[in-house]
């Protein structure tokens, strides 16, 4: 009991000691520091597109641009860097992956692709004229928590004024080109910022209108062991019948919506989780599923076959019959 009390009281030590024990920032040569910042294209951005035609040469009206200017005349891809966060606005810890994101039409979130991911679409790292689809507009900084919101939000000055185009070869809304301020890169649709959108909608945006648009399905099965999730199995499904069955099941799913940000998960899900925790660890399986589409894009989700009657994050439970089908495919 005494050691428990001591452990609890240590919880109330001065903030300065807690902060001091944060991971050490390892210093690195300046060149590598800035190169890695440019490569990772740090910080989350909340921007919205002004969906009217804009002057493509509009310069940014902010003095905080920090990325080195690169000519965009040759079509070369050049990732957007982020403005380093100031001391008071440390959205991210040092070791966290950061993204540059854009919200299109107030709800569709796109995230910047890395160099390797871009190679799947642009082999020599250069966009030609055929890559450019319809121009969507120019990026404008606005508050992004919701449409009728005036609350403050961090924005990335480096994207301000940039032009946005659909990426034509994909022929869907899944990939866009953002260019301006001396940079150009591809951004992929990664989901909706608001709840209530189904997997079917995500597939539609990414150009998967039926199972025929899916190239293959890969999955990783994990179970909790000790401090981490341990990979039990990694496999690929190429059989069309099985891909079609998975696609049919996931496109039937209905997403649930929380009443507000203050609401936790719905009661039926919390109750099911309580039961789930009583299961043997080996049964607490989480399966990461990825559908690779023929157009080069992908859609991922997590499936927990033994939570309730089968749970795919953000959706109501599967029917027993559908869960049994999925289990058969993934086990």
């Amino acid at each position, binding site marked *: 009991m*005494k*050691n*428990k*009390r*001591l*452990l*609890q*009281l*240590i*919880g*109330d*030590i*001065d*903030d300065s*000691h*807690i*902060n*001091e*024990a944060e*991971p*050490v920032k*390892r210093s690195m040569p300046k060149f590598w520091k800035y190169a890695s910042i440019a490569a990772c294209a740090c910080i989350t951005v909340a921007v919205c597109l002004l969906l009217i035609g804009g002057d493509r040469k509009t310069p940014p009206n902010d003095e905080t641009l920090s990325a080195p200017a690169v000519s965009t005349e040759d079509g070369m891809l050049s990732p957007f860097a982020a403005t380093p966060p100031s001391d*008071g*606005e440390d*959205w991210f*810890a040092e070791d*966290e992956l950061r993204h540059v994101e854009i919200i299109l039409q107030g709800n569709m979130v796109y995230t910047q692709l890395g160099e390797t991911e871009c190679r799947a679409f642009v082999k020599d790292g250069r966009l030609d004229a055929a890559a450019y689809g319809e121009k969507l507009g120019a990026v404008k900084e606005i508050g992004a*928590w919701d449409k009728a*919101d005036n*609350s*403050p*939000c*961090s924005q990335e000055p480096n994207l301000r004024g940039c032009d946005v185009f659909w990426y034509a070869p994909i022929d869907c809304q899944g990939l866009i080109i953002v260019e301006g301020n001396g940079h150009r890169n591809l951004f992929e649709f990664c989901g909706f910022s608001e709840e209530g959108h189904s997997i079917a909608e995500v597939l539609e945006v990414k150009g998967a209108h039926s199972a025929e648009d899916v190239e293959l399905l890969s999955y990783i099965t994990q179970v*909790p062991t*000790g*401090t981490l*999730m341990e990979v039990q199995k990694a496999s690929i499904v190429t059989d069309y019948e099985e891909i079609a069955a998975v696609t049919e099941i996931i496109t039937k799913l209905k997403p649930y919506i929380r009443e*507000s*940000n*203050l609401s*936790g*998960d719905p009661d039926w899900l919390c109750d099911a*989780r309580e039961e*789930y*925790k009583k299961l043997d660890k080996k049964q607490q399986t989480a399966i990461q599923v990825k559908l690779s589409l023929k157009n080069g894009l992908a859609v991922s989700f997590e499936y927990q076959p033994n939570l309730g009657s089968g749970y795919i994050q953000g959706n109501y439970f599967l029917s027993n019959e559908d869960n049994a089908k999925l289990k058969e495919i993934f086990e």
Partner: protein
Amino acid sequence: MNDDKIVELYLLRNEKAIKATAYKYGKYCYSIAYGILENREDAEECVNEAYLNTWNCIPPQRPKLLRTFIGKITRNLSLKLYEKRSAEKRGGGQAALCLEELAECIPANSDGGRIADDIAIKQLLNGFLEGLPTDMRRVFVRRYWYMSSVAEIADMYGFTHSKVATLLHRGRKKLKALLEKEGIEI
């Protein structure tokens, strides 16, 4: 969004405060909860509860450092759930190890000592930490506040496993000596 703006949203009873907190400190809180509970669902449950507790605490409270404020709430909730899980024979992990280690700090022959109140022990602990060399203090807090494993701490600070273990052992000895010297019974 900086902390002042998030706290302002709490004070204005604007639910976006929760969203901003989750966005900025969700991962931090999860790492604290997971370090103690070593269970994904339990850790998520504690973090969600921590957001609600923060919502209920501000106002009237107005934290100077939101990060450690919510970190402390998460840690307390995680320890409570850990105790519950232990009672259900489902506990384990770093919290159990930390408890075992801290038992070494409790003076063995404490008869006649005074049972100190929380404030007195908090002051003593802060004084104790201030008196430690920086490396030892960081390692000690990392182990017994964040409940990181010895291997994680070694990796975090670029120390060897044995150096971390030695620093912790010396730290516990010093704390025990201080408690004995002050005649404080936990």
